[in-house]
């Protein structure tokens, strides 16, 4: 099994799944990311990331019922696991911690 390191794109995907709650499936996640960030991830890249996250145990998936759209094909919905939540919290904490350690919080010329 791969390490539990969380890549930058993976983190965004993971957070987006959290944002979307019950409605997190491929296209929805892609559109949400496009809406919230400047980037346009390809659907292939997204699924690749989802597959990695699942392998690492940060998310789990279940298949929804057949729908009339999508050519009658089912969707796969993703939810964050406990481990996923822990990793997210940890990453957030680490970031804040480091952020707070910066001596002059108000950068010259920035604010």
């Amino acid at each position, binding site marked *: 099994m791969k390490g539990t390191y969380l890549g930058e794109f993976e983190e965004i995907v993971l957070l987006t799944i959290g944002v979307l709650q019950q409605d997190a*499936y*491929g*296209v929805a996640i*892609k*559109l949400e990311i496009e809406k919230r960030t400047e980037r346009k991830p*390809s*659907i*292939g*890249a997204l*699924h*690749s990331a989802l*597959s*990695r996250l699942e392998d690492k145990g940060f998310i789990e998936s279940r*298949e929804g019922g057949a729908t*009339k*759209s*999508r*050519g009658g*094909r*089912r*969707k*796969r919905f993703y939810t964050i696991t406990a481990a996923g939540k822990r990793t997210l919290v940890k990453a957030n904490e680490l970031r804040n911690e480091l952020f707070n350690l910066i001596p002059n919080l108000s950068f010259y010329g920035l604010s």
Partner: protein
Amino acid sequence: MEEEWSNPPKWADRMLQWFCSEEHLEILQGDLYELYEYRLEQKGKVRAQLHYIKDAFDMLRPFALKKRSQKLKNNTITMFKNNIKIGWRNILRYKGYSTINITGLALGLACCMILYRYVTDELSYDKFHTYPEDIYRIAFSTNDDGSPSNANGSLGPGATAVRDFPEVAHSARLLKTGSGGRTVVAYDQKRFYEGRFFFADSSVLEVFTFPLIKGDKKTALSEPNTVVLTESMARKYFGEENPVGKVIDAYPNDDGKKMQFKVTGVAQDVPSNSHLKFDFLASYHSQKGGWLESWGGFWQCFSYLRINHGADAVTLNEKFADYSAKYMGEDPWYTLSLQPLLDIHLRSDLKSEIGPTSSMTKVYVFTAVGLLILVIACINFLTLSTAKSARRAKEVGVRKTFGAHRSQLFGQFISEAMLHGVLATALAIGITSLALPFVNDLTDKSLTLIVQNNWLEFAGIIAACILIVAFMAGLYPAIFLSSFRPIVALKSVVTGQGSIARMRKILVVFQFSISIVLIIGTLVMSSQMNLVRQQSLSESGDQHLILQMNNELRANLTAFENAVKENAAVLSMAGSSRVPTRGSSTNCFRDEEGNGACAFAYYNDFDYPETMGYKLLAGRFFDRNIPSDARGAFVISAAAVEDFQLGSPEEAIGKKFGHGDYPNGRVIGVVDNFHVYSLHTVRPPAYMVIAPKEEYNFMSIRVSPAALSATLDHVANAWSRFSTEAPFDYFFLDEAFQRLHQEDLRTGKVVSVLTVLAILIAAIGLFGLASFTSEQRAKEIGIRKVLGAGVSSILVLMSKSYLGLILIASVLGIPLAYWLMNKWLEGFVYKATLSPLVFVVAIIAVAVIVASSIGYQSFKAATANPVKSLRDE
């Protein structure tokens, strides 16, 4: 709704289905469709489709791909293992069949491997030089049309070419002196005869690529009395010592005088695929005299040149056409042309070649025969496999009933064939490695199974063998067996045999036509080779022992002769300038009426014609008691009588004969024509005349064939008393004549080996066919026996059809053999007659082979208890 989704490009969809694992396919496809729909609304059809295609390709990511290995493991690998297992069980179950099958295939494959090695070796001749296409040999022509006739020639052109033509980068001559073709080489206590001793220009190492291990190729041969020898010669004479700077003795010239050479270089051994093979290269200007650069005469001299890379050889060749006129005036003796180095071994047929050459025809014939034998072996596999089909039909039926697809059965039979291929290839490698020493002996090559540790090539050969067997031999049975319809197969009525039976018969006729041709070929060749053996043997069966003379022996010739004659087995002996098989010198002169002709000249001692056993037609031999015989008495051959127009042999006696040295020459005797060279050449006009011992290069001794080794010991003993410098050496005249036919003897041996192989494989095929027929007709035979048929009538019934096949094969094979053998015999001036007995013997031999290979099966069928074949219905 459905129409709306059919919009995205189908091929992209199909591609996705092809590579994407089932686990992910539905979800990914769903997402792609949804996005497509979304984009259709937002951006229009074209861009949506483009996006779709891009996204489909974008899915080519590791996570989405089918796990191929897993999938294979699940099904194909298991089935493959199972196929191999079933195949193995089948091999074990029908041990007899399998042995025949695999042996036949292995023989065919081994034959192919050996011939492949042989042919690639032939084609590789002289290619090891750098830019071999830039090297040419100056060929000499005495033909009217200027086509090259001689590989050897004059000494001049090889020296001047490099000065006269700017295109020529280097030119070099290789000169052999001495009539024996061999010289004694001595260092310290070691003395041996060496036949590959040449005088060569120093540029020879620039023209050719013969790398020096020691010494500098630019200076090695520039000084007189220097020599370059090969690595193995260095080891032979110097052991572990460094040979450079040491001095060796040699006696290369006809005068038998000692010459000394300082070793200045050691060359790598000459590769076996070089047409030019040497052991010693002595510097050209170790020889002294004006003749060294002369343009006249034919010497044992071979001239080579290397042109500048990229220079135009065609125009250079044109310039060579009238080159000899520049040095020899308006009417030169010969014209010159350039012969590419790479053509020498396979595409030239010149007189006085430097070594034995081969021909392209031989390469083609061997390739064809190799492939033919492989095809026959594969055909046998095919025959036996289809013959076994009745047994496998039920298996096929059951498998199909359980849902096996035709392609799976096809795979099963192909993998069985491949299993046979693997076993046959393994066996073939064994056979090849056992056979190669004999092949090398036969062909005078050094072929190996693996060339220069090239394992990759070897692996390729193995793979090719297995695949050839799997597809050439296995394809048809696989198609045939997998085509059975289950119901028919299970009812045990295998149809569609008619066409196969016919094909099998054609194959048998084909095989036996070839066998008949080969048997006739072997018989004719062996009778021709018998003629070779008779060529030199006198009626009494006496042997002719020939010694090479040297100065020490000449000094004490009478004492030496007396010592040799002490042994009662020595019947007669005499010295001579030449002996048959060892070179010749021709003299041309006119008689008093002005009729000019040429004849081979022999300067010899009194007893020479008698020693050689020549048959006297008229007059007498030389007589020591008649003083005039010592000067100007000639014994000439019948052909010389004819050429010099001396009338009948009786009329020729007493007529004037001879040239400047013998102004009062008379013919005293006429002998029947005798052979000097191979049976390919006419027995030449020749004359013999008495000359002093300084002229003798050979000593011929006629010995009775009884207790030969004791006689040899005696002669050797006498030799060592009188000749201390040169070691004892001899040859038998009949063996020398046989060596002149080396190529013919080789061809004969190769053909007889191929005959045995072809017959063996054909017999195997016939055995299969017979077993198939008896199996098929088991019920018929059972009924016949129940109704009262005897064993003999059933045997006749079973063999009748084969007799017809032999007849057809004979009708096809005999004319072909007759034509081929006549072609082969055309090359001989003296040939064995093609007796009709040969053809009868061949047919009987084939009939016996057929009878013995079908006899067992037929007899088994005829004596079987009819109850066994009739009870199960």
